[in-house]
């Protein structure tokens, strides 16, 4: 077993990797082989298919989540039971209330703007000569890590006094247009909007790709019928395109909203949560691991769970609808 844990040379590492994959495949094969008999009770089959994933998820996600919920009722070092004191602290602190407000701004604006940009762009470049290139340009930010994207944009927003040579593109544009250079990341709420722009920049490509795929799937006969009715392009967009792709829009908004609630790299990298830009995911990290305020941190994590409830409820309803149609 020792060699599976201690790897020195690249070759050893690749061998261990191969063994890991083979081991995994072998275990799964045995489980499936053993359970795939005729007349096997249904629950055993369910267990075989669902069991491995369920065990991992319970161990790695459910248990830590429950632990966190319990910790949110305990003091910062986890020793004493403080009931709702942490929640009182969070809602009673104006800085933390602002963190909650910022998070709401993020979770509302990012999905809506990303989807809007993605949709408009998908429609505009659809079936043009440069479609492929145009789509790649917008999708590329998805392949860049959040940290990488944050570095790129921090550089765009870089500030130098008006009279000096600019190094940030945004300020250079302002100076060329005859304005003074600005501290983009300093003043609330503008700094939050400029950070949100980064997330929109990352997510729009995702929205664009999916919506573009759905647009292409709109049946031709619907389009043709509308054409015969003599609708304008705008009417076509509003009353044919958008309704046809509504389910895809819902999914795009949902997934982007989930990602936005969890994102912390952007704020962490670009402002460190300073200048009133912090959001729950970032504040949770700072409180728990930098300031040693575990109780407040856990409370913020629980609030994150709570914020996702509306999204889950909405999707459950959508799933039910889809189920009925099946």
């Amino acid at each position, binding site marked *: 077993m020792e060699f599976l844990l201690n790897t020195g040379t690249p070759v050893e590492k690749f061998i261990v990797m191969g063994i890991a994959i083979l081991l995994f495949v072998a275990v799964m094969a045995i489980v499936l082989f053993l359970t795939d008999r005729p007349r096997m009770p249904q629950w055993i089959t369910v267990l075989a298919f669902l069991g491995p994933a369920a065990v991992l998820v319970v161990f790695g996600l459910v248990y830590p989540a429950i632990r966190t919920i319990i910790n949110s009722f305990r003091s910062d070092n986890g020793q004493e039971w403080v009931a709702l004191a942490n929640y009182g602290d969070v809602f009673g602190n104006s800085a933390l209330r602002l963190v909650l407000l910022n998070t709401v701004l993020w979770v509302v604006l990012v999905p809506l703007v990303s989807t809007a940009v993605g949709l408009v762009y998908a429609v505009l470049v659809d079936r043009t000569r440069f479609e492929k290139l145009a789509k790649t340009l917008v999708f590329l930010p998805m392949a860049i890590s959040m940290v990488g994207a944050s570095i790129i944009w921090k550089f765009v927003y870089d500030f130098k006094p008006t009279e000096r040579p600019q190094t940030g593109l945004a300020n250079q544009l302002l100076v060329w247009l005859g304005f003074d250079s600005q501290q983009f990341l300093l003043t609330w709420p503008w700094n939050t909007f400029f950070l949100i722009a980064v997330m929109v920049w990352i997510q729009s490509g*995702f929205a664009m790709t999916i919506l573009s*795929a759905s647009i292409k*799937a709109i049946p031709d006969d619907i389009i043709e019928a509308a054409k015969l009715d003599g609708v304008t392009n705008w009417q076509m967009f509003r009353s044919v395109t958008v309704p046809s792709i509504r389910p895809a829009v819902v999914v795009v908004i949902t997934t982007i909203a*989930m990602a936005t609630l969890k994102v912390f790299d952007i704020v962490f990298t670009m402002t460190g949560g300073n200048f009133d830009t912090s959001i729950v995911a970032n504040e949770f990290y700072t409180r728990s691991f930098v300031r040693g305020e575990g109780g407040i941190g856990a409370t913020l994590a629980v609030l994150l769970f709570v914020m996702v409830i509306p999204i889950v409820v909405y999707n459950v309803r959508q799933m039910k609808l889809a189920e009925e149609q099946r």
Partner: protein
Amino acid sequence: MSQATTVPDVPGPAPTKSTGPRKLTKAEQRAVDAKTRLSSPWASVIAIVIAILWSVPTLGLFVTSFRPEIDIRTSGWWTFFGDPAVTWANYDAVLYGGSTNFIDVFVNTIVITLPAVIIPITLALLAAYAFAWLDFPGRNMLFVAVFALQIVPIQITMIPLLTQYNNWGIVGSFWPIWLSHTIFALPLAIFLLHNFMMDIPRSLIEAARVDGAGHVKIFFQVLLPLLVPAIAAFGIFQFLWVWNDLLVGLVFGSAQEVAPLTVRLADLTGTRGTAWHLLSAGAFVAMVVPVTVFLLLQRYFVRGLLAGGVKG
């Protein structure tokens, strides 16, 4: 937190593509061409503005990564085109500047990424099959729970997981990283692949059942071939997420022998948070592989999304 959390599920509309390919007349072709385009000069302007906004920032950083440190600090990257001064020094510093061998961390990242893509997809496929085609009590509740688990932040799992890994004596090897990536990928992977599976016509499954096929046979012979594009699409996303991940690598793989590229770059470029010459070069080194993979596999990616969107 990651791109992985935004993997699509595309229950698009269900168009009837029953006519099959036939040659369109010129008039029809034109009608189809213009079917959704808002063709006006404004439309072109908007499209071009978006395209520029989405590519110029990256271009700026790319140009910056080749400029000498002193130039970066004193003038904008756009001045480069008037007075090009190219240096490899930044890349040199990033690749060879530290005490760790760059080849090693590159190997580590590959060794981490492959199992961290294969294992969760396999497990998620099986689980998604159970949710989609097996009947058992509490199925919908369980599925909603899995969906909701997407929101659990990785940070809260650090201490409980590390405690267990430590008890098992596997800290410092690749196993905790693989396991953790698998766990974090599962909710989204199950959710996504489940939606793809739901789009496969029930009649196909029923027909196989009538022929006496067991679940394993149905899974491998009927479903898997149909799911290949979806698997490829999710595989690309999971690959991007694992490759770009910093947090998991940092917490579970900080030991020198297993640390991935991102951890090493974070340490290197972070020593001075504003060393743009190192940050820009470092960001591009980290970006090369995922962007290349994405560009090469883009086709499959889009096809996978379409497979989810277009039933049967």
